[in-house]
């Protein structure tokens, strides 16, 4: 197992390095320098600005300097907000986004998992069809449509819940969390239903039933562990999706999180901010994928073996 973890960690390093390199050069070759769009700047001022941001160095030296800074955990200054570092902005946004993501993930696993297990216990009955149809709607209804619709219904028509902000008014965290979590609840419901159905048809479940175990013990003790494996494997990719979803949700609900900063930086062409957030978010995603792989492998020895031999299921 420790060899497996070490192997996966080693694989993550080139990925993160590739992300940094590609992002760095992409941002540098982008048409138009960061200060071109400003009002006509005196040449001396521009030179001073460029020197301050190390833009006067040859490209490769800029790259190595950036790598060096990164190694010390320094993402550099923001182009757009003079005097503020990218680190400060990331720190400010991270807590908010992490909290939002956590609530969304909790909603998704609880509701999705329960719905999936519930549906799998009586396949092809109303108990199966109703939650699964809801799940299909959840998958087909994009976040950026569900969000406005929820706002329209619960915020504007019924006036039950606040529709903007984060932590300012009680209850303003509910709609964003549901909006972000809904699609993942739907995916998790489908995955856990499929996983449970597969497991419930296995011999050892029949044995457990034949032993005369009560149904709830069969489900909770014997089936759940294997049946929820696909869900755990899904959590890694889901995390990446949640971050992308947070771009939309934070923009919609005006939440000062990382996702909104990223989108704003993209529009402002705040290159150091784009670079910093891309590297930061990508590293997070890679690490989360790693974690979910390790978790899935530790629950399923067969999967671990596949990773060793490099084959795919």
């Amino acid at each position, binding site marked *: 197992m420790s060899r497996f973890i070490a192997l996966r960690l080693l694989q993550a390093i080139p*990925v993160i390095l590739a992300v940094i390199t590609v992002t760095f050069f992409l*941002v540098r070759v982008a048409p138009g320098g960061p200060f071109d769009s400003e009002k006509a700047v005196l040449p001396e001022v521009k030179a001073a600005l460029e020197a301050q941001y190390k833009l006067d160095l040859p490209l490769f030296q800029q790259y190595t300097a950036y790598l060096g800074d990164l190694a010390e955990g320094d993402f550099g200054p923001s182009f757009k907000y003079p005097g503020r570092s990218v680190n400060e902005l990331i720190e400010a946004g991270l807590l908010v986004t992490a909290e939002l993501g956590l609530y969304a993930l909790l909603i998704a696993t609880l509701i999705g998992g329960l719905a999936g297990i519930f549906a799998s216990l009586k396949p092809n009955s109303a108990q199966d069809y109703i939650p699964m149809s809801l799940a299909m709607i959840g998958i087909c209804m994009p976040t950026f449509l569900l969000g406005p619709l929820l706002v329209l219904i619960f915020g504007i028509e019924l006036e039950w819940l606040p529709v903007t902000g984060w932590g300012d008014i009680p209850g303003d965290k509910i709609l964003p969390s549901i909006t972000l979590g809904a699609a993942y609840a739907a995916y998790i419901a489908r995955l856990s239903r499929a996983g449970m159905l597969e497991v419930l048809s296995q011999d050892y479940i029949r044995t457990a039933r034949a032993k005369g175990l009560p149904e709830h013990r069969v489900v909770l003790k014997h089936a759940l562990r294997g049946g929820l494996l696909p869900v755990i494997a899904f959590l890694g990719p889901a995390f990446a999706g949640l971050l992308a979803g947070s771009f939309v949700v934070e923009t919609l609900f005006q939440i000062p999180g990382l996702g909104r900063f990223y989108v704003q930086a*993209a529009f402002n062409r705040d290159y150091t901010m784009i670079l910093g957030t891309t590297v930061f978010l990508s590293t997070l995603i890679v690490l989360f994928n790693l974690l979910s792989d390790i978790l899935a492998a530790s629950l399923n020895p067969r999967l671990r073996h596949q990773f060793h031999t490099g084959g795919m299921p």
Partner: protein
Amino acid sequence: MSDSGLTAIQDAEKGTSLWQDAWVRLRKNKLAVFGLIVLATMGVIALLTPWIAPYAYDAQNLDLGATPPSAEHFLGTDIFGRDMLTQIMYGGRVSLAVGLIATSVALTIGVTWGAVAGYVGGRTDAVMMRLVDILYALPFMIFIVLLMVVFGRNIILLFLAIGAVEWLTMARIMRGQVQSLRQQEFVEAAVSLGLPARTIIRRHLIPNALGPIIVYTTLTIPSVMLLEAFLSFLGLGIQPPQTSWGLLISYGAETMEEYPWLLIYPGLALTLTLFSLNYLGDGLRDALDVRGSKD
């Protein structure tokens, strides 16, 4: 034995091909058939839009402004007095085109990559699939946003960027298929006949892996369309004067308090299409008995 008995036996011997069999099974799946009908209708409407749209695409009526659905404008008008039905029809053309073209890009790269890796095997295969593994770990959603920012909001780039993300799973599926087909006698026969690898892959391997390819393609289109809508919603995808469902939803969300129909109808169009594609994909998977292609 009577004549009718003989024909019955002959009929039975003729058998049904895999595709006929699948078609029979697909037709029994009501939701899949519903999806197929919806998609066919949408496809026809999208093709004929320039001729059947009730109003011209750029016809504005600023005096009219936003009006709720009425006899002249079935789905109402937007704040510039443009007919919403016309906007949705033209937006659908773009959304469906992005879905189809980007999926074709993904399909071409993925099938070729996977087939070559699976057929050649050995070290080539290891290197090619390791690359897929690494790309899998890259956070592409963020990269697409970055690409659109750096290189401007170009529709061709959008196709390529989305296609470049979605080919990975296709490559994995194709490789698995080819690896198992490779072992079979008819491929060995083709090899011993001296056919070049390219011909074997094209004539023998890809046609036999068509089932999973079709199923996965059907399931890729909705995720591609969703990606386009996501980017357009953020303002990084389709740009005016062109429009797409994602862009219409984004405009609708801005004014939904006063004019909710501007959000609801484009949203309905997108959701219905994605719904149909997903159900058709699921139905095809069951009908062609493809396992483990997704989920």
